[in-house]
């Protein structure tokens, strides 16, 4: 996106400037206002909406999407995009699920069931490595992020199919069900609030800290805001990309594991289409699709909007076919609005 450098003098009067500041705040708060309006409408429209059970439900369903969206935020802030997040979620969680439901046999030696933390660590490691691979390809071969992750998306799905042999896990080759200590992650409530929400919030907290208070965060915004400027200031674009995609991959594996824990079953086609919903969440949340502007809080709000919209349409008895249409329309409208907003902001 071409950011026009104005050579004319900046907003001259104080009134001018405060008017601009007000508009800035309104524009920024746009997604939040939309979320509140949607919740208010649904509370009227459906008696089942504004209940504790339903809110807990929305939380549980939205937490994995929110975590994917946090990773996606990093990628989009650098001016990239990670199309492989859902595939990584499936691959990583399938790894964890297979290890948990069948004993590990290495070189003919039966090691028995691995402890749950080891299975979790293995899943997270898969996500991290998959993300590193994305970053390495993008940094080394200098191909567009979009293309690189479009390719690896297929690769990771394929490897996930190999891992599960195309079956649901636990399935025919499994020797036990998912341990309850594991499914607890996806189903339990802590103080009446789903545990997965806490996990999403912890991820968000760390992500916000990284973006705001570390060199990496600055590098992310710099690379997305003006890659050339980042280079002139001695920031390695490639290294930044590797970190960003590693983070996105790691978060994708967390999202996948939470999803499997909620469903008590893994499957190589898990979370299909979630990459697009994660991108939608980020864009709805006000992050510039061309990089350099935005943040995690917006993406959380965006994910909630997507989640609440789906839930509300369900409660209102709208067919899933129409739901897809509605989601698509919302995304396009948001991007149109965003473009218009940015143009008017940058024009002053």
């Amino acid at each position, binding site marked *: 996106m071409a950011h*026009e*450098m104005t*050579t*004319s003098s*900046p907003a001259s009067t104080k009134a001018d400037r405060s008017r601009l500041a007000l508009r800035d705040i309104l524009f920024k708060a746009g997604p939040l206002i939309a979320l509140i309006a949607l919740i208010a409408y649904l509370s009227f429209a459906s008696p089942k909406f504004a209940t504790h059970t339903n809110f807990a439900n929305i939380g549980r369903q939205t937490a994995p999407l929110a975590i994917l969206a946090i990773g996606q935020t990093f990628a989009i802030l650098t001016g990239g995009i990670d199309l492989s997040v859902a595939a990584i979620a499936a691959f990583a969680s399938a790894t964890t699920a297979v290890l948990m439901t069948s004993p590990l046999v290495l070189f003919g030696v039966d090691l028995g069931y691995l402890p749950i933390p080891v299975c979790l660590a293995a899943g997270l490691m898969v996500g991290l490595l998959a993300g590193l691979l994305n970053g390495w390809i993008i940094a080394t071969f200098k191909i567009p992020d979009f293309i690189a992750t479009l390719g690896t998306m297929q690769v990771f799905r394929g490897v996930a199919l190999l891992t599960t042999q195309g079956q649901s896990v636990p399935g025919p080759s499994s020797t036990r069900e998912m341990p309850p200590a594991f499914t607890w992650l996806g189903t339990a409530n802590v103080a009446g609030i789903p545990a997965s929400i806490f996990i999403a919030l912890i991820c968000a907290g760390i992500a916000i800290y990284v973006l705001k208070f*570390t060199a990496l965060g600055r590098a992310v915004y*710099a690379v997305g805001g*003006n890659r050339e*400027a980042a280079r002139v200031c001695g920031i390695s674009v490639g290294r930044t990309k590797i970190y960003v995609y590693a983070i996105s991959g790691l978060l994708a594996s967390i999202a996948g594991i939470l999803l499997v824990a909620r469903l008590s079953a893994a499957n190589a086609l898990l979370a299909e289409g979630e990459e697009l919903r994660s991108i939608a969440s980020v864009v709805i949340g006000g992050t510039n699709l061309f990089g350099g502007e935005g943040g995690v809080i917006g993406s959380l709000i965006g994910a909630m909007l997507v989640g609440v919209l789906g839930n509300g349409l369900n409660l209102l008895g709208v067919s899933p076919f129409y739901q897809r249409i509605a989601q698509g329309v919302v995304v396009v409208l948001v991007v149109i609005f965003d473009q218009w907003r940015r143009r008017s902001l940058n024009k002053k």
Partner: protein
Amino acid sequence: MATSPAHALPDTVPEAKVLLRLRNIGKVFPGNVALCDVSLDIRAGEIHALMGENGAGKSTLMKIIAGEYSATSGDILVDGKSLPANFDAARYGIGLVHQELSLVPALSVAENIYLGRLPRRFGSIDWRAAERNARAILQRLGVDLDPRAPVGRLEVAEQQLVEIARVLERAPKIVLFDEPTSALSDSERSRLFDVIRLLKEEGHGIVYISHNLSEIMAISDRVTVLRDGQLAASLPIAEASEAKIVGLMVGQALAQQFPKFESDIGQPVLRVENLVSGTALKGVSFSLRQGEILGVYGLMGAGQAELAGAIFGLTPFDSGEIHAGETPLKDHSAADAIAARIGLLSRDRRQSLIPMQPIAPNLSLAWLSDRAMLSKLEVGREKRESADYIKMMRIRPPSMTQKLLHYSGGNQQKVILARWMSSGSKILIFDEPTRGIDVGAKAEVFAIMSRLVEAGTSILMISSEINELVALADRVLVMRSGLIKVELTREQLSQEALLLHSH
């Protein structure tokens, strides 16, 4: 000769028809008057050279004639009739041969010549006619090129001829050349001149922009000199000489707006030896001393931009040595250059800024170059230093939240300067430090430069602003075709000397 009026032409061309007349053309860009009250005639069978310093308005004028820009004021008349705004130049017989080649490398010669207008027959493209006509046009130019050859495989000079053929295909009466020889070798150049003379004999009116004085003397019939967007003079070549043209380009000795300050010049801090980079730098050697402002002057494409890129580690170089103090820089990145306390103010400010962020993150960006990715930001220091620099450099508006894209060019430039000062740079490369900033901000930037050298910083000042170099530099290296042609000391430094050595 001296008795004939300035606008009359020699008797050998008795009815030199005026093909195109510019009347009081003015062009204003936001914050910048590019052209003011320019009038001139372009006649049939005449090669009309357009000269002027960088930024004098030559290219703007060319683009107005070619209909790419519309003039803010004044008229363009063809056959005595005024052209409408946003006219289609080709319709009025005007063709522009661009400075940069605008061909599609993957397409064939014929396709490029007919780009978007391939001849059709029964609704489908008539390839045979296209190739036949393309060959005919090229033969008229005296070249034998295969119309089916992909343009990307041709020599630069051949590509230039294809570009000319494309313009000629539309049968223009006036052909404009914008620095056509900058990429050509001597023999290719003389071939191009043959083509231009041929066009002249066919009765075309030719406008020719070049920086090459001897070239202008050799080929043109009339020369018009622009200075600061105004017509300095328009005279027959017989009345011109190289010295006279240079004098017209420079104008009266400019008032010394920027008084030279004296600083103590110390030991060399940056040594460049025999630097070679592709065809852009062909063995450049110099040293920059402590507390010195070393100017670098040259025409566009003489190698100054590549020099800055090579020293700062943005573009790799083939051979040669760069030492910053005792640190050798070879195969280095910008991070290495920054570690060696070098800072770069790039030619294009947009290359250096994060436009959608406020001052503080822009200021501290270069601090990150040697930090670990997961290290903590110095948020407190960033805030403190931003506030300090805003005050010290009088950055307006003095805001910590306003996005940088809302600042004027001069204030943006101050932020970049503050960035390098805050990261402790001792060697600053200023590439066109005053481009696109207003006079007031210019004076402030110069004041800061003088404070910097006083404090022992060294400055490599690459500039095409002759008067600024004359006013500020302790020495000036004049570059031409990738070489340092001459080094002028403060005593030898003058606007005329810079122009003469660079052309």
